């Protein structure tokens, strides 16, 4: 599948497959399959047999299981609600259209998150290209969405304002992280992934993942006013 890239880009945090990833996948083979992985295999079988309607129905369960987490990751990565929405949709559509290439040696979560993150990276690159051409507005869609979203749910304007400021500061701080650090941090903190899982997703060595995580956390603490 085209989304699983073999190259790594240090600037963008692009993902790739390495020997360590394959090793991790091999280790996981002995572990019992997760519920989502079993479901993915079932869908693959249905698609291969041509039972598309049944496959679509089962795929709905898979979407429901991963949708919230995927949206969190995509939003933290892109900082734009509409972009994140589209990225999540694209990732799920890609998963379904390439489900026959899914292998149980990979946990479904890892496979799906790789596709999602690669899609997010592509969108970030496209946005960066677009921003180079056009002058970006001060008030982005993300800001508007956040304002619209937070305004209605909370009655206290002071709390809303504080939350918005904190959110903007955090977004700016995360945006200043190095590409790989951002990927690793986002996956760990918003995707609930362990360093081992991130290692499988990104193709980075597990100890490298830990180093990136530590550096990202230290930098964020410094940027957000905590102790560096």
């Amino acid at each position, binding site marked *: 599948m085209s989304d699983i890239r073999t190259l790594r880009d240090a600037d963008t945090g692009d993902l790739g497959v390495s020997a360590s990833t394959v090793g991790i996948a091999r280790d996981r083979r002995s572990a019992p399959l997760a519920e989502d992985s079993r479901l993915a295999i079932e869908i693959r079988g249905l*698609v291969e047999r041509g039972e*598309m309607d049944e496959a*679509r129905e089962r*795929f*709905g369960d898979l*979407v*429901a299981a991963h*949708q*919230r987490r995927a*949206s*969190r990751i995509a*939003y*933290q990565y892109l900082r734009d*609600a509409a972009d*994140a*929405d589209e990225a*999540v*949709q694209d990732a*799920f*559509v890609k998963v*379904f*259209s390439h489900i026959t290439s899914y292998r149980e040696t990979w946990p479904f979560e890892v496979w799906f998150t790789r596709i999602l993150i690669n899609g997010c990276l592509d969108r970030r690159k496209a946005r960066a290209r677009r921003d180079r051409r056009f002058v970006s507005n001060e008030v982005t869609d993300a800001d508007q*969405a*956040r304002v619209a*979203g*937070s305004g209605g*749910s909370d009655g206290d304007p002071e709390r809303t304002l504080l*939350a918005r400021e*904190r*959110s903007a500061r*955090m977004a700016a701080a995360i945006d200043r992280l190095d590409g790989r650090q951002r990927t690793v941090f986002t996956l*760990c*903190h*918003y995707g609930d992934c*362990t*360093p081992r899982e991130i290692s499988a997703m990104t193709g980075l060595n597990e100890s490298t993942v*830990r*180093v990136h*995580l*530590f550096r990202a*956390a*230290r930098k*964020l*603490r410094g940027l*957000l006013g*905590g*102790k560096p």
Partner: protein
Amino acid sequence: MRLRGHHLHDDRLFECYLAERSGDPIDPPTAEHLADCPPCGTRYHDLVRVMDALRADGEAEADLIFTPERLRVQQQQIAKRVEHIGRPARVISFPGQFVRRTLTATTSRTAPRWVAAAAAAGLFIGVALGASYEWNGFIRSARQSLVRGADTARPTRLTPVATRGNHPPDVAADDAFLSDLEVALERPHTRELLAFDAFTPHVREVRDRR
């Protein structure tokens, strides 16, 4: 164990945080140190507090945007997009309404078809009449010109025959005139060459000298 002086390094503290989050056991000597050393314990708690706050803020922000309603809409959109995968491309039929209208239009146009045929016939007749009239005129004018030509040609042919024996100087004058005309025609028409031509003796002049 990596220590900063007698205390734990920041990266070690972060390892403990990650281990605790993942549900993995903390390295026993490190756990022991954290329990026994109040400054390290405080630093560790600070780190955990900051990281948890970061995570909670991020999740809360994302959840505020991706409400259950929005997620439901997103799920429907995914289902709609997935619906088209694995199905052959849909062929859109030609608009039936338009076809029907065209068919009725052709049947109702039976009467105007006669009008078109009559117009075409009229045009054809008009063109044919015009052509025949022009042809008649051409023939008439050709006849007239032939008659006129015959009238003018006859006297010129007869006059010299009648006068040839009576006026021999006129014949010489005619020959001279025709010779001059011939010379004029043979003469170059380019102005630059006229001077050369004037110096060049002509056959006629040589013959006259003899």
